[in-house]
């Protein structure tokens, strides 16, 4: 029975650039546009960086410098678990009197999951608990850094030229100096973050920034081109005859997680610093309001702004399904839950013939014709025993039960296709929504209630297979 509560059985349609159908629990609601938004029609922005094991926040500039890695925590190169620091006592000669030995603490890294230790790759024990571990140097680092600098300069120069041309052409019209293409060219080589956050309404200031940069950075960076060699190092002679020591060979995953070294042998697998995770905030692309903004503190899971759809839109859930039979009318019990505190009126409408949104349904559905009234969500209701239950005069053919802000109602389903696969029905749900966002015009009558607007959503339900 719990499978009926699975979120992907009831899908809501989102009108965005793409028509996306997804469960209400994954959607957001922009209350300024009064529309549902999915993850694909919002812009994602990085809010903060933090390490998943030590939960330390890191400012973005520092994160970029450290290549998005934590300074204190390491990952096991063998199983990618987090490494912990262990201590042992080793006898060491006293500095004053070399003939006597005293117990000194030595620290090494160990993985609790696969039992890898830093001694396996020959890393010596350190005398400090943290901060002593270094990643090995890569001999190619200098050359790569020089190449990166050169290409960044090249990209910047190309961008300037392209934008100068564009601006010259467009001067009679509104200047839209930064096209999407030039932004991507810059992002390709990782130029400064200043140029990346462009809003379509602010071209002039960004141009000013560019000309300043042009003045500073005039020094030419020259690189030596890579040289092609005729001779390659030959394979070792016993390449085909030497038996493979299987525990020593690294797996592809272990190898590729260290792209700068890609060691073939397990004895060269050094631990890497742990990757940072990000907290992201979501922004509606049409009205630029934030839909989701998490708290800054990595240990806190709350949100400063959380405009999720389940707190604004009534949710339809499947409660029970009888045996579905081909071309026989079956009665399905659904529930509707009201997430807001005022009374909500809901009307259900079946989809018409030729409805462009109705592409997946495989059954005819008859929804209740009367308007359904949902009581408001009252957080104190369970404690208030003296409250009289409101009388809604429900039609028992339509409304099966009513419980605080939830009602159960019947729909009739006639499966139309005999094939394998789930019976899918869809209908539209129309409800009133009171916008509690700050009104643009101050109301003159003092405390006038917010106006209600009517929203319509297309809902699809997956009812399961036909039972012969």
């Amino acid at each position: 029975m719990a499978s009926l509560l699975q979120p992907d059985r009831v899908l809501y349609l989102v009108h965005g650039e793409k028509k996306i159908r997804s469960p209400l629990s994954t959607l957001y609601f922009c209350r300024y546009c009064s529309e549902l938004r999915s993850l694909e029609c919002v812009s994602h922005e990085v809010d903060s960086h933090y390490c998943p094991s030590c939960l330390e926040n890191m400012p973005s500039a520092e994160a970029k410098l450290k290549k998005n890695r934590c300074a204190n925590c390491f990952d096991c190169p063998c199983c990618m678990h987090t490494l912990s620091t262990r201590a042992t006592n080793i006898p060491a000669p006293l500095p004053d009197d070399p003939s006597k030995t005293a117990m000194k603490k030595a620290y090494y890294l160990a993985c609790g999951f696969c039992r890898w230790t830093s001694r396996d790759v020959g890393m010596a024990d350190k005398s400090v608990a943290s901060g002593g571990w270094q990643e090995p140097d890569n001999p190619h680092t200098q050359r790569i850094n020089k190449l990166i600098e050169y290409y960044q300069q090249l990209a910047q120069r190309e961008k300037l030229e392209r934008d100068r041309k564009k601006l010259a052409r467009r001067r009679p019209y509104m200047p839209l100096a930064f096209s999407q293409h030039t932004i991507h060219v810059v992002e390709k080589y990782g130029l400064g973050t200043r140029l990346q956050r462009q809003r379509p309404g602010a071209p002039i200031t960004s141009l000013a920034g560019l000309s300043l940069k042009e003045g500073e950075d005039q020094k030419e960076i020259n690189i030596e081109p890579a040289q092609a060699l005729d001779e390659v190092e030959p394979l070792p002679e016993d390449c085909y005859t030497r038996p493979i020591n299987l525990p020593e060979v690294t797996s592809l995953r272990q190898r590729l997680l260290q792209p700068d070294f890609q060691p073939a042998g397990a004895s060269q697998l050094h631990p890497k610093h742990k990757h940072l995770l990000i907290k992201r905030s979501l922004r509606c692309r049409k009205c630029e309001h934030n839909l989701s903004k998490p708290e800054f503190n990595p240990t806190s899971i709350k949100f400063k702004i959380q405009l999720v759809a389940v707190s604004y839109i009534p949710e339809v859930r499947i409660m029970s399904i009888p045996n579905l039979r081909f071309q026989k009318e079956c009665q399905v019990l659904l529930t509707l839950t009201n997430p807001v505190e005022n009374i909500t009126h809901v009307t259900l409408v079946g989809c018409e013939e030729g409805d462009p949104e109705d592409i997946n349904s495989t059954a005819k559905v008859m929804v209740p014709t009367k308007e359904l009234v949902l009581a408001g969500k009252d957080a104190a209701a369970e404690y208030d025993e003296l409250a009289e239950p409101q009388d809604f005069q429900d039609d028992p053919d339509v409304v099966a039960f009513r419980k605080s802000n939830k009602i159960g109602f019947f729909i009739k389903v006639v499966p139309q296709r005999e094939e394998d696969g789930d019976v899918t029905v869809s209908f539209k749900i129309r409800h009133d929504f009171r916008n509690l966002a700050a009104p643009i015009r101050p109301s003159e009558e003092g405390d006038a209630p917010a106006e209600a607007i009517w929203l319509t959503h297309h809902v699809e339900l997956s009812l399961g297979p036909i039972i012969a």
Partner: protein
Amino acid sequence: SDKMSDKQSAQKSAKIASGAVVCVESEIRGDVTIGARTVVHPKARIIAEAGPIVIGEGNLIEEQALIINSYPENITPDSEGVEAKTMTIGINNVFEVGCMSQALKIGDNNVIESKADLGRNMILTSGCIIGACCQVNTCEVIPENTVIFGSGCQRRVQTERPQPQTLHPGPKNVPLWHSE
């Protein structure tokens, strides 16, 4: 110089050496020999069905662990020609909570982690670690110092053997069999 003493209880043929700690809530059935300094926690089960079990010294068998010498699947107890094989377990092994071992031969200093499952045809040598929830049912001798871990039962060889367990003296305030 282990002093073996027979227990006068329902489990007639269990021989427990002196110095071993066996809790009364554990279930020991059949011909089981338990060596000195071995600790058997409550709710552990050692069942010698298809043959005797000999457990060495210094082992730690935690709660809900199951060590069972059972008949292979396609052989019923009554079929002929079935000889009783002895299951041997060496010294200083650790059977963590909830593991199940049917392996006929286990060496020394192995660790079988929680909810691991060992098949009958496996032979553990020494220093092996069978990771948590790993089900291993192959017909092979596991080389020394092998670590089996992960959902795919990946293997690697460890160079560091974990220090031998300083076995804790056993759960307190639990009725124990007396072994003197």
